[in-house]
């Protein structure tokens, strides 16, 4: 049993290192699903995935199959994808439209979009004198205890109590503000459909890797160098900005390992983190200038400068979301098992922005995030290798000691020190949050 093997979860996490079982033990996985993923705010989807009444989209929250559905009143509900009669999954497709109501494929029980029971076939003759009463809550499709939305991004918490969404997000809320503010219309909409990729490792390896400033020039050097060669050839004959999609790739190699210390991570309570930007995505080509003009018209010069001046590469919302706001990409992490993790990768369109700006972030989406990715292939290889090594008896610990003791702590925020952007502060911060959750701290 877990209790015998691992007497104290607190002892698994030290400030600068973590026990390997945290990544490989199936019982710890079950526990962290219950205490973390099925407790805190987890991203379900974006409201634009379900524009019309009856539109639904399924999403896994922790181990729970949930669905997000648009009601007739325009409200978005998050329900367990389960019929209360015999437990049949209510919808079998990943997404679709259920019409006026949900109708179970097994015995035709019907439910309103908010989950309330609408009708059971021959209810009066079949259930007279039984405990089954149309109004009893156990005969509804169970709703997520808490659902909140911020600027169109829908989150659910499967715990009744806990901090509200805004309090939970804290300063990581900039992920959604930065993405939406970059739209002249102040909001975004999904580009259907998401890419889905499975990695053969624990979910935490993904979250750590996303803000691991030390890895790109090592892991991704092959693609970076190949892209840089082609970028140079194109730059010779193309107009400014045309080689940008190659620059997105080549940055992985041209920013050499020592340069990554110039960036900074800022770490927040609940395990969230920001990695500052590095790609230089503001060329002065006609497309960008046309976009700037629309933005200035919408926001005024001063606010425009503030918006495009936000310097972010990634925002991590622990435990399951990675947002690249300046490129309008979002990856939602859905743990499938201790050694299998699904990521859903979404791209958003800035409402009111020119087509060329959409295409710029689309290029990144296709090149970096598609199932034929030139980048993540080598991450997935590392994740698998990590899982294999961590499962062995070759050692007990994972080290997060880089620049430990040198981070700058202020008002509950931990920043990497100047020229120490490769500090493993984000991993330490995530594991600190993990340990607190696992010991029952909200």
């Amino acid at each position: 049993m877990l209790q015998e093997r691992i007497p104290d979860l607190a002892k698994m996490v030290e400030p600068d290192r973590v026990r390997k079982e945290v990544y490989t033990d199936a019982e710890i996985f079950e526990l962290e699903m219950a205490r973390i993923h099925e407790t805190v705010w987890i991203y379900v989807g974006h409201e634009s995935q379900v524009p019309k009444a009856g539109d639904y989209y399924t999403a896994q929250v922790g181990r729970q199959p949930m669905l997000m559905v648009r009601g007739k009143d325009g409200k978005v509900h998050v329900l367990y994808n389960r019929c209360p009669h015999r437990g049949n999954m209510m919808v079998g497709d990943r997404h679709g439209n259920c019409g006026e109501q949900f109708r179970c494929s097994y015995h035709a029980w019907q439910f309103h979009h908010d989950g309330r029971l609408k009708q059971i076939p021959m209810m009066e003759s079949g259930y007279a004198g039984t405990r089954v009463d149309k109004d009893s809550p156990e005969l509804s499709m169970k709703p997520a205890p808490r659902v909140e939305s911020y600027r169109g991004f829908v989150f659910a918490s499967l715990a009744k109590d806990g901090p509200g969404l805004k309090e939970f997000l804290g300063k990581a809320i900039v992920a959604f503000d930065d993405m939406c503010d970059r739209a002249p219309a102040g909001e975004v909409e999904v580009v259907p459909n998401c890419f889905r990729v499975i990695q053969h490792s624990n979910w935490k390896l993904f979250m750590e890797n996303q803000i691991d400033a030390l890895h790109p020039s090592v892991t991704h050097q092959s693609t970076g160098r190949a892209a840089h060669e082609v970028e140079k050839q194109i730059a010779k004959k193309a107009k400014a900005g045309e080689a940008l999609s190659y620059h997105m790739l080549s940055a992985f190699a041209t920013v050499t390992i020592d340069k990554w210390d110039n960036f900074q991570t800022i770490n927040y309570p609940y395990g969230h983190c920001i990695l500052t930007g590095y790609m230089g995505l503001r060329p002065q080509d006609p497309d960008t200038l046309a976009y700037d003009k629309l933005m200035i018209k919408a926001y005024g010069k001063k606010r425009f400068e503030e918006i495009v001046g936000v310097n972010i590469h990634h925002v991590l919302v622990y435990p399951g979301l990675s947002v690249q706001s300046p490129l309008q990409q979002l990856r939602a992490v859905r743990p499938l098992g201790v050694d299998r993790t699904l990521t859903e990768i979404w791209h958003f369109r800035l409402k009111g922005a020119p087509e060329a700006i959409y295409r710029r972030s689309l290029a990144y989406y296709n090149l970096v995030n598609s199932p034929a990715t030139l980048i993540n292939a080598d991450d997935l290889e590392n994740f698998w290798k990590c899982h294999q090594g961590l499962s062995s008896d070759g050692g007990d610990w994972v080290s997060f000691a880089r620049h430990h003791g040198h981070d700058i702590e202020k008002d509950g925020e931990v920043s990497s020190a100047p020229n120490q952007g490769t500090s493993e502060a984000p991993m330490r911060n995530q594991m600190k949050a993990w340990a607190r959750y696992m010991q029952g701290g909200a």
Partner: protein
Amino acid sequence: MKAQHDAEQFLYRQADLLDAKRWKDWIDLFTPDGVYWMPPDASYKTWDGQPAIFAEDRNLMQVRMGRVLHPDAWSQRPQWGTNHVVSNVVIDKAAKNGDLTVRSRFHMMEMRRDDIRHFAGQYTHHLKNTRAGYRIKLQRVDMTNAQAAYDYVLQVWV
């Protein structure tokens, strides 16, 4: 009859080059403005401005080839290989100048490390009739398993 035979031979050779990992020779099958495209599902009408699993012109093909051949492309280290079978070749359109639109079915088995994966679907080739033989203006790959979650990723062209 001759067009049918020539198209089939061309498609078989295209698949041969992939299986033999002769990337440069494979890229050279494309016209200078040729595109390799794998849409996320069969409803897509164009690769332009849309999410795509692959949407590569020759420049991007060069990047992919450069990556695959780099000694530190970590995910290329394990032994791997593919085997394509191409069949059901149908000429949909034959222009007077000899250009063809050809549909076919493919099945690719991939071995990577200890894992076997299968990919299958439909090719649509827009072939340009040139002096040097057919060249690919567009290779559309509608993979039957395109919509399923990808257990690992596709590293080279299917």
